[in-house]
């Protein structure tokens, strides 16, 4: 695990967010340091997805502090936040039906130097190369998840926001996604992962935040997990 750095890669302070009149985030505080993998846990409706959407700016009605390497994102439109260096893999995967697999893969423009090449990505995800001319949504659920992850590895962003990548997938695919995450982590990528599958998250995360009703209610490091397992299980309702 990396040592906490004085300036976090991503710093979220007092983040509030609304869908119309409905107030769903009530002062969320999160730090993710350079090269770290942090997991947001919490039951359905706790506000995990909304937190990621507020960071990207897709949740427009928001207040508080969101800093990427010290740069304030809260006033920026979504496309500029992305260009500041965010790679986002949404919960619903967001594969475009009107685009082929290859077009989906190369859609996101480069936001920084140092992303993977298409050849490297195909080495990491060989099925995608085989299916590169298929319509994006003709892939299986697992392949679509791979594509959603592969898609943002080209753009050079160093902060990866991943929303429930294992949801509804077979164990061998979950394992494959775990391998990919470890590869990314080894390459120095900073990862904020939303995950309900605690057994999966445990294998990749350095630290955990637990959310409930739009707030962070608990925080623990990977080393503290064994002692806290029982209380965590009640918090998460698993």
């Amino acid at each position, binding site marked *: 695990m990396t040592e906490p750095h004085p300036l976090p890669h991503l710093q979220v302070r007092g983040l509030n967010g609304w869908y119309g009149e409905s107030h769903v985030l009530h002062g969320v505080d999160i730090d993710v340091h350079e090269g770290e993998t942090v997991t947001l846990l919490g039951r359905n409706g706790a506000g995990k997805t909304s937190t990621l959407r507020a960071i990207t*700016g897709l949740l427009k009605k928001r207040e508080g502090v969101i800093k990427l390497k010290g740069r304030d994102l809260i006033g920026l439109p979504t*496309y500029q936040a992305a260009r500041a260096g965010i790679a986002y893999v949404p919960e619903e995967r967001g594969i475009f039906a009107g*685009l082929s697999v290859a077009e989906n893969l*190369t859609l*996101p*423009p480069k936001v920084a130097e140092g992303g993977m090449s298409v050849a490297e990505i195909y080495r990491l995800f060989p099925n995608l190369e085989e299916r590169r001319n298929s319509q994006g949504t003709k892939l299986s659920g697992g392949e679509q998840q791979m594509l959603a992850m592969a898609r943002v590895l080209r753009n050079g962003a160093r902060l990866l926001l991943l929303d429930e990548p294992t949801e509804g997938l077979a164990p061998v695919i979950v394992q494959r996604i775990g391998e990919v995450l470890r590869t990314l982590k080894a390459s120095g990528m900073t990862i904020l992962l939303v995950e309900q599958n605690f057994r999966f998250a445990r294998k990749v995360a350095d630290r955990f935040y637990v959310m409930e009703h739009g707030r962070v209610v608990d925080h623990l490091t990977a080393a503290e997990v064994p002692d806290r397992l029982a209380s965590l299980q009640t918090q998460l309702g698993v």
Partner: protein
Amino acid sequence: MTTLFGLPIQAISGQLLIGLINGSFYALLSLGLAIIFGLLRVINFAHGTQYMLGAVTAWLLLTVLNIGFWPSLVLAPLIVAVAGLLIERLFLRYLYGLDHLYSLLLTFGLALMIEGLMRDGFGAAGKPYSPPALLTGVVNLGFMILPIYRGFVVVASLIACLSVWLLIEKTKLGAYLRAATENSGLVQAFGVNVPKLLTFTYMLGAGLAALAGVLAAPIYQVSPLMGSNLIIIVFAVVVVGGMGSIMGAIVTGYALGLLEGLTKVFYPQASSIVIFVVMAIVLLVRPAGLFGREA
């Protein structure tokens, strides 16, 4: 005399040519409407006005600045596209989050205002606009006499439609457009300046309408009212093809133009309503349109 179904082949091919020319305008106009609707979710009621403005601009360029057909074929669409930019930046963009009805009312209101102003300053009577010298005259194809300019209109419209189709299906910009049509938020979250893409799309649609207007000027004369008659038919074409379907708009445009021409040969009384009859049947059988994706 050669006949087909008891009718002289010249009469049939003549009506088919008229149908093909009408279809060329339907295709260009419904293509613009379809890309605007696909991405902006705006039903652009000012489309007929933009078509008329293309013709009027070409006429003004000629009479005031002595700029002829060929430069106008590029200049008039550019000028109308810039007018489109102003409409999108100043008004339309504030309505994107709202019900379609608002942008429909806005563009409808703008259309009425612009047409009213034009009628005031220009008079309702049609003004002639000659085709360029290069394209005057006719060729005898044996089975029919083809005015060269009309043949040119068909070819020009095909080239324009094909170029737009290639832009949308085969380029990176087109991939952004197609993706943003499905999920514009996510495309933004990838760092694409979607607001700029929306402005560009509206300009492209308006420019295509204006291009149709310039092409139409030598055939139909230039009048402030030329767009309002046409636009209703074009909306029917878009509904038949499927709102937001690019290929659907193009193919349906030509096909319905031809169908209208054929109806004039075989049952002239129905020719002015045949497109609307097709629209009604399509709405009953396949509400998403012939090429539309079922929701």
